[in-house]
């Protein structure tokens, strides 16, 4: 019998205790770590590469969705939450396993069974799941990025621009570059459209950073940022810019 290595993540000790207790009749599952916050969870996953994660949604520092974004979709996750109507909808839509607190052994066992069946398969794209769990018309407040064991948090107002690079986006903030595995279109839908605009197939820019728009070739332009950086502006990007800036 293969041992399933599990990590329990919850900021409340009593809540971790419940998962522990419910795992007692399942000797095939071994708890390799318990984490009280998102940072510890990301670290534990990187160091121990477990098979299964019991992940609380509301936690200090990083919430459950941000943890999922940082660890990637390769680990089976069972979310636990007390109440969050949007998160629940997201779980339903994306067929993610979840447990509503408080839960009993019957429900726990059923969730564990499903999770076992999913071991080795991929979770839905984390950023899509996180986007679905946000309340309507609520946009991303910050972006979490992992570089090895290090986690960086970029508040959206400090993001200068984002550039598509294959499966990644390059994020520029306060003179530093960060790489995050996400598509630029996905990022675009998560950001507040009143503050960020897709000026090009490969670029999203923070409106506040634009110093001026200069003509480049006959029907293309460049956006010059406050720090002198120049970003290409496509024709449709220019139309979007004009709409946002309210110019005729």
């Amino acid at each position: 019998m293969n041992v399933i290595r599990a990590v329990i993540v919850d900021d409340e000790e009593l809540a971790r205790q419940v998962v522990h207790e419910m795992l007692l009749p399942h000797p095939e599952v071994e708890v390799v770590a318990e984490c009280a916050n998102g940072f510890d969870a990301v670290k534990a996953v990187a160091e121990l590469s477990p098979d299964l994660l019991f992940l609380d949604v509301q936690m200090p520092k990083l919430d459950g969705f941000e943890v999922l974004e940082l660890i990637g979709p390769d680990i089976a996750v069972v979310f636990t939450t007390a109440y969050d109507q949007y998160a629940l909808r997201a779980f339903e839509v994306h067929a993610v396993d979840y447990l509503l607190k408080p839960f009993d052994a019957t429900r726990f066992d059923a969730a564990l069974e499903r999770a076992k069946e999913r071991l080795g398969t991929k979770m839905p794209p984390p950023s899509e799941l996180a986007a679905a769990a946000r309340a309507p018309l609520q946009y991303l407040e910050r972006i979490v990025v992992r570089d090895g064991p290090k986690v960086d948090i970029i508040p959206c107002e400090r993001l200068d621009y984002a550039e598509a690079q294959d499966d990644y986006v390059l994020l520029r903030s306060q003179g530093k570059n960060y790489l995050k595995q996400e598509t630029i279109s996905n990022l675009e839908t998560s950001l507040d459209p009143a503050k960020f605009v897709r000026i090009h197939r490969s670029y999203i820019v923070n409106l506040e950073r634009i110093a001026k728009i200069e003509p480049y070739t006959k029907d293309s332009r460049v956006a010059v940022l406050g720090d002198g950086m120049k970003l290409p502006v496509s024709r449709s990007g220019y139309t979007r810019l004009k709409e946002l800036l309210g110019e005729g």
Partner: protein
Amino acid sequence: MHPILADPRRLALYLAAWIPLVLLLAGVLASTGDFTWIQAGELMVPLAGVYAFVCLSAWYLCRFLPLRTSAIFYLLVTVNAAAAVSSAIWAGAIGWAMAIGFGLEPQYLRQRPILFGAGVLLFDLAAAFHYALAAFETSRQAQARAMQASILAREAELRALKAQIDPHFLFNSLHSISALTASDPAKAREMCVLLSDFLRSSLRMGDRERIPLGEELALARSFLAIQQIRFGSRLRLEEDVSDGATVCLVPPLLLQPLVENAVTHGVATRVDGASIRIEISRTGERVAIRVENTFDKDARRGRGGLGMANVRKRLEVCYGDAASMEVRETGDRFRVDVQFPAEATSVAALAPPAQRGEVQGDEGRDIQ
């Protein structure tokens, strides 16, 4: 803005009220024998038309000498002086000019005292009318304000009650109880009782307009006792409460939302938890409540703020400008200061908590 001039319908009514007065005055002039009915009409219709508008100026007397705050003698003298001046201008100057225009000067000069007297009376009448109108407007406004205040109070109450039973709090607490049933059954029972007490007293708060601050503090304490079990050492509590303040009356659910905010945005956002400090004091006729907590500056704000907005609104409805609420963030400290006038506890308001104590005592015995 003038209440009659501003509204064309009122102006039409006001002018219509002048028609019988004009007829009466014309009748008086005709009865002296100096004027024919036609001559009296010719003179009085335009003259009264002018005076109808002159008399509208009585409104400004109403505004500068409100009935309630002015000395009655001074008021009578001022109104009559204004009436005399208006009438002198009207009957003396305008009337004369018109009489010359109509070729009725000798007749006019003979009957001038009647005209002057009528002018004074008409102005006094107009002043009385305006005062009545002002009183009517004031009472209508007061009624509307009172109605709005009661609607707001009820709304705030409803919203506060809804916010009270925060699903996160409720389900997480139940989950903690579920955890304790296996590891520490006695503690699980304790938490069941704490949670029931809290829910029961917050449900009861809704029907009361004012409760002693001490009772509100007890509610906040039972809330914190539950959170203490959930968060353990992550929740650190300090209290500085003066007895003189706890007997004062407050609108229910004033303190509890502030404490709840301190837990959800302080303790729950920090890995190492947070300390919450509650200070309640009374200086003379003012009561001051301060709730202070440490929090994670980088934490996402997310939900919340609703409870705080509720408190602000309730203070406004209950005390108007006499209450203040100040929210301040310095570094990793978050502080809310609330101040309001002290209201002494009445005997009637003290009765319910005593009753509650008995009820709880009975239930406690049943469980054991």
